[in-house]
């Protein structure tokens, strides 16, 4: 697998292909993070593009030899926060249904552009995403980064611009709240039962 440090260095040297490789390497996980944070693929699409545009414009800030991934995540985090604060995502009403584009679908009615997505138990997926969406923003981010994105607490704290201690607390509280929402026993109850 390509090394993000090497790709970033080549990209800063003017190699556009290296940026495309970096996008291909980082965007699946980053997009997953944004979808789980926003609960909207359309918003996540937009935020992902904004994030990489900012990465492109700030590429001179790269320090050779450093891992660019936490920095890219930080930009995504900041872009998401700015988006929430602006509240610019006004609900858009569709006035004329004739204007709606026709969406290609397969024989089972599944949209064609989602065929490449990995399959999961749809009920569990929906329940988990619903439960995640109900968490406070900071706890949701802590759970998404530490439990779903596989980041260490230190990495997650760096991305979110907080301390390791605060991130631990947010992740723990978020995880416990998520367990409660999904009807699973809490860690304490599990320990007591065993």
């Amino acid at each position, binding site marked *: 697998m390509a090394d993000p440090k090497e790709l970033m260095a080549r*990209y*800063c040297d*003017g*190699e*556009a292909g290296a*940026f*495309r490789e970096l*996008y291909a390497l980082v*965007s*699946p996980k*980053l*997009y*997953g993070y944004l979808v*789980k944070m926003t609960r909207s*693929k359309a918003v*996540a699409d937009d935020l*992902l*593009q904004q994030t*990489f*545009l*900012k990465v*492109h*414009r*700030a*590429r*001179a*800030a*790269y*320090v*050779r*030899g*450093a*891992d660019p991934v*936490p*920095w890219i995540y*930080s*930009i995504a*985090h*900041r872009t998401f926060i700015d988006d929430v604060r602006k509240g610019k995502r006004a609900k858009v009403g569709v006035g004329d249904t004739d204007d709606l584009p026709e969406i290609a679908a397969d024989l089972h009615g599944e949209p064609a552009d*989602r065929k*490449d*997505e*990995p*399959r*999961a138990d749809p009920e*569990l*997926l929906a329940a*988990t*995403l619903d439960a995640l969406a109900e968490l406070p923003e900071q706890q949701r981010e802590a*759970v998404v980064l530490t*439990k*779903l994105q596989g980041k260490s607490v230190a990495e997650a704290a*760096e991305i*979110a*611009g907080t*301390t390791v201690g605060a991130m631990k607390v947010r992740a723990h509280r978020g995880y416990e709240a*998520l*367990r409660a929402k*999904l009807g*699973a026993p809490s860690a304490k109850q599990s320990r007591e039962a065993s």
Partner: protein
Amino acid sequence: MTDDDLALPDFAPPPMAKELEAELGSLEPVATRRPVRQLAIVGIVSLLYGGLLLAVLSIRRDAGELPVEWLVFGGLAWFLGFVVPCYLALVPAPGSMLSRRRLAVTSAIVAAIAFVVMGWLVHPHGPSSEQYNAERFIQGHWCLELGLATALVPVILGAMFLRGAMPVGSRWIAAALGAGGGSLGGLVLHLHCRITDPMHTGIIHAGVVTVAALLAAALVPRATDVR
């Protein structure tokens, strides 16, 4: 529930936007950030600027009447108050791009408190020194202005170098830069101002660090954010 139960699938990301593709079409090599070199530039230019200010304003008239140890160690403390927060704000840990904001802001807080204590408790004076005390305390505001003017150079340079480098925690890093700049202001005042009462040195001279940190935290992130 285990972590595996939470293992949601990743989603297929969209292709790159046309705007981004267009920008890649005219991609030029860029000079990447070199933090240690930037720290050296901030340090040298700021010290030269501080030296220039001192040359224009003159060294304090009571310098020869004060203990040399106090002049030297006091100056060294102000110098460290300048270098350490600037170092932590500008130079990330090896292998990382993001500044050490927690350490940087801790060093800024330590500097802000330490200089108040130092100014309040240790303030030798000679026959040529002046004492404003509470009665004329407000007349000492010129020192705050001079200190803040000195802080401008390291803060502006640091902000230029950090553009795009701190998507999160930029206020903390800016506060550390401000505290570093304020400490340089304190160094200039230490060598220039002959007002030696504890209120003046403990509140106004040391206050430069806090005020510069707060102003930098409020203003610098607007200049460093990437839009």
